[in-house]
C-alpha cells in the first residue's frame, strides 16, 4: 500500500478475518482463530512461512524481496497497520475504504497516477 498495490492487502486480510455464514454478515473487527498477529509482518520468518498461503503476506514478502532497511522506514503505512489491535477484519475494512477513495479520485480524472 505504501507503493502501489491494494488488492492483495484487501483480499489477504479477508482470508484471515472471522468466519461468516453469508456475505451479509461481514464483521468490522476480529480475526480468524489461529490467524497470525498483524504485527507479524515485521518478522521475516513468519512472512516467509505465510506468503505462499496468504495474499497479504505474499505482498509483504515481495516487499522484503525488493526493499532493504527497516520495515518502518520503507513501508510506513503498512507498519502503522501492523499495530492495529482490532483484528484482520478491521484491516480489511480500512484497506477497502482506502481503495474506494482512490477509485473515486481516479475516476474523477482521465488518468490515474502513481500513489
Amino acid at each position, binding site marked *: 500500500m505504501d507503493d502501489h498495490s491494494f488488492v492483495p492487502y484487501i483480499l489477504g486480510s479477508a*482470508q484471515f478475518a472471522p*468466519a461468516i455464514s453469508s456475505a451479509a454478515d461481514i464483521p468490522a473487527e476480529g480475526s480468524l482463530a489461529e490467524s497470525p498477529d498483524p504485527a507479524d509482518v515485521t518478522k521475516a520468518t513468519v512472512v516467509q512461512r505465510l506468503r505462499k498461503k496468504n495474499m497479504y503476506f505474499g505482498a509483504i514478502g515481495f516487499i522484503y524481496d525488493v526493499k532493504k532497511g527497516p520495515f518502518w522506514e520503507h513501508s510506513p503505512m503498512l507498519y502503522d497497520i501492523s499495530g492495529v489491535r482490532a483484528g484482520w477484519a478491521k484491516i480489511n475494512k480500512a484497506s477497502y475504504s482506502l481503495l474506494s477513495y482512490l477509485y473515486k479520485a481516479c475516476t474523477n480524472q482521465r488518468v490515474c497516477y*502513481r500513489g
Partner: protein
Amino acid sequence: MTFVLQLNASMFPRSVGDDRSMPPKTLAWELGSPDVVFSNPIIQLRQLLSSLNGIIDEVPPDKGPRRFGNISFRKWFQTVEGRMSDLLAQHLPSGVLSFSTATESPAKNELEAYLLGSFGSPQRLDYGTGHELSFLAFVGSIWKLGGFEATASGSEERAIVLGVIEPYVKRVVPHVDWWWFRY
C-alpha cells in the same frame, strides 16, 4: 467497485453447519486451496496471463543501468499491444467481446484498453494504483458481462481471486517492477 466488494466477501472464511450440531466447521481459502475449482473462463484467463508472461521471454529486460526505468518495457508493451486483439479473441468468450449497446463500440475495445492499462505506463515507466484498478476493471467487466460461471454465492468470485488476481499480483507485477528497478 461492486465487483471488488464481491471478491472481498468471497475471501472471508465460511462457517458451515447448523447451530444445533457440534461447533460449525470453518472453511478458509488459502492460496492453492484444493477446495477452489477453476472454471473454464478462469482457466482461459490464466492462459492469457501466461501468454503475457511468455512475451517477457521474447523481449527480455535490458541489462544496462536501470535507474530511470527499463526501455525494453516499451518494446514488451508494444509487442503486447500488437497481439492484444488476438489474445483476447483466443481467451475470452466471443459473446463478451462483441457485446455492445446501440451507442457504444464493442466491449472488446474497452477490455483491450483496461488490460493494456494493467502493466504500467510505457511513457512514464512506472506502475501505480491506477494500473491495478485497470486490471480489476478488465476482470470486472468480463464479470458484469456474464463471462464467468454463475455459481453459489461467492465460489466463482473466490476462484477469480485465487486463479486470476493472484497470478497477476504474483507474477505480472513483480516482472513489471523488475523492469523499472525502482528499488
